[in-house]
């Protein structure tokens, strides 16, 4: 396992350092945004004062994360991350589908995709489970809790 003292060409771009970009960018975004709102003063604080303070804190915190903190707790992206990407994509497709064909069909499709392709369940198991679970949720939320769900052509809720 590599340690924090490993020298090498990639030393400055190690994941444990690159992660400092997160707070730096977010803080760097918040400071001008807050300043534009009006900072005021410490006796008459404006709406932007607090976001600016928090933004400055984020930028400052990026420094120790970059220079001091090198815990081995950063996970790099692997082939397995592709599965997560596919999962996120399926969620993004689910929302318009839900609006179009209702919860039961869209939910079944989402569950089937997860059970079959991400969970590697057998086709029959995945199909039965996905239909049963999504119909069950449609009943709970649509009928029992009376949530006005988007139109379902199957008329379940």
């Amino acid at each position: 396992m590599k340690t924090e003292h490993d020298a090498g060409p990639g030393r400055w771009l190690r994941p444990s350092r690159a992660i400092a970009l997160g707070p730096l960018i977010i803080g760097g975004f918040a400071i001008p945004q807050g300043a534009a709102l009006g900072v005021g003063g410490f006796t008459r604080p404006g709406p932007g004062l607090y976001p600016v303070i928090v933004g400055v804190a984020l930028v400052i915190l990026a420094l120790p994360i970059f220079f001091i903190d090198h815990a081995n707790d950063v996970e790099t992206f692997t082939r397995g991350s592709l599965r997560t990407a596919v999962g996120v994509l399926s969620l993004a497709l689910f929302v318009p589908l839900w609006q179009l064909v209702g919860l039961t069909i869209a939910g079944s499709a989402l569950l089937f995709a997860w059970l079959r392709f991400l969970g590697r369940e057998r086709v029959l198991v995945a199909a039965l489970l996905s239909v049963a679970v999504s119909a069950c949720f449609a009943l709970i939320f649509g009928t029992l809790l009376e949530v006005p769900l988007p139109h379902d052509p199957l008329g379940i809720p």
Partner: protein
Amino acid sequence: MDLNSILYGFEVALHPTNLIFVFLGVLIGTAIGVLPGLGPSATIALLLPITYTMAPETALIMLAGIYYGSMYGGTITSVLLNLPGEAASVITTLDGYQMAVRGRAGQALSIAAIGSFIGGMVSVAALIFVAPPLAALAIRIGPPEFAVLTLLGIALITRLGTGSTWKSLAAAAFGLLLGTVGQDIFTGEQRLIGGVLELADGFDFVVVAIGVFGIGEILHNCENTAAGVAIRTKLREFLPSRKEMKTSAGPIARGSALGFGIGLLPGGGGVLSSIISYAWEKARSKTPERFGRGAIEGVAGPETANNASSTSAFVPLLTLGLPSNAVLALLYGALLIQGITPGPQLMHTSPAVFWGVIASMAIGNVFLIILNLPLVGVFTQLLRIRMSVLGPAAILISLIGAYSLANRLFDVWLVIVFGVLGYLMRKGGFDAAPFVIAFILGPIMETSFRQSLVMSGAGIGVYLQRPAALAMLVLLVAVFAAAPLKRRFGGRRRAAGDRPEQPESTPTSR
């Protein structure tokens, strides 16, 4: 102490509806404590939409049951599989799993259940005495003290977490920033909404919590497909011997007191109390070498402390309005949804919630011991449900739950975005708990911060003029100055002790 209030609490808690929900709560809690991959934060976040239609006390009674129920449930997998079901049970794996390896799983589980029961009951009893004076004191706290207190609460959570402190601080700051999105309550101006009108009311905390905890966790699990686990341990003998009971009596007594005390601190909670209890028992043992090799004290003490502290952690929540961990922050949010703001006045404005929840914890603990002692074998069967089945179902219910908040698909998109954020935070080693807690406390902190600046006219100096605020600031500095010392101590202890093998991966932000 007011006896009538407590009796009233029991009257509320013993109402048939509330009895059913406390039972459901501890049952669900134990079940999810057993299931690795679905923690109490995620479960409570997922169940929040269902609580809208409940009476506030019923909702909180059930959610609280899930919380301390999960503390019990987490023990089962720690002992049987060396897999802590939640962070507070990590320490139990050290001796609990070793006991299981030596064929004493039943004894380990029973002593954990007995210890947790005693710890929980002692804590409830002590809570009845401590909560009213603390609430009375809290009324005298003004905006400057409250601003520092919330800051202290957030800071302590970042210090006590399992991840890197710097990253936890950054996560908390990000949470504070997201808390400012939406309309400014002082001037009415829209802040940081980037032209998206749906954000005018800011982010709903349920959306943030479901996304970061629930979906984030599942997306992360999806990457590391864990194979189904099989249980081979047989559980023939359940009850500890008389000798083991005698050995455990001391650790249970000390664990109760220690857990109660730590739970009172903002930022305290299960993880810290169980670690300190373990260290204490090992330090005072005449045979410390047995620790890590199946010492029953190493299970009894931490398990008691962990349950006692998760009960007393309700004191800062119900009296100061300060949630000391992510789960309690969700309970805080659940109350806000019901139109109730937890704080010093809660005891008077909503006595049914305040005393009902406290009394329900005593009843919940009785249910838990009844459930746990005979049903340990049944709970272990839950481990056979694969995450590949549970995860997708949890995702779908999260998305529908987000929609039902305001009946708009915009919130579903937001939940997905926060799910990705939660996933990226886990990849980057950022603890999600400080983020969510800071997000919830942020608006309270900003309001009291700005109020104290305006009302004093002395600017930042107001914090130096008020003794209580100053004392808390000193404490805040001390907490962070103690870090290098602790690191030194920790290093020495690690070098000196013959520590057993730690589990490879432990859930950090559940």
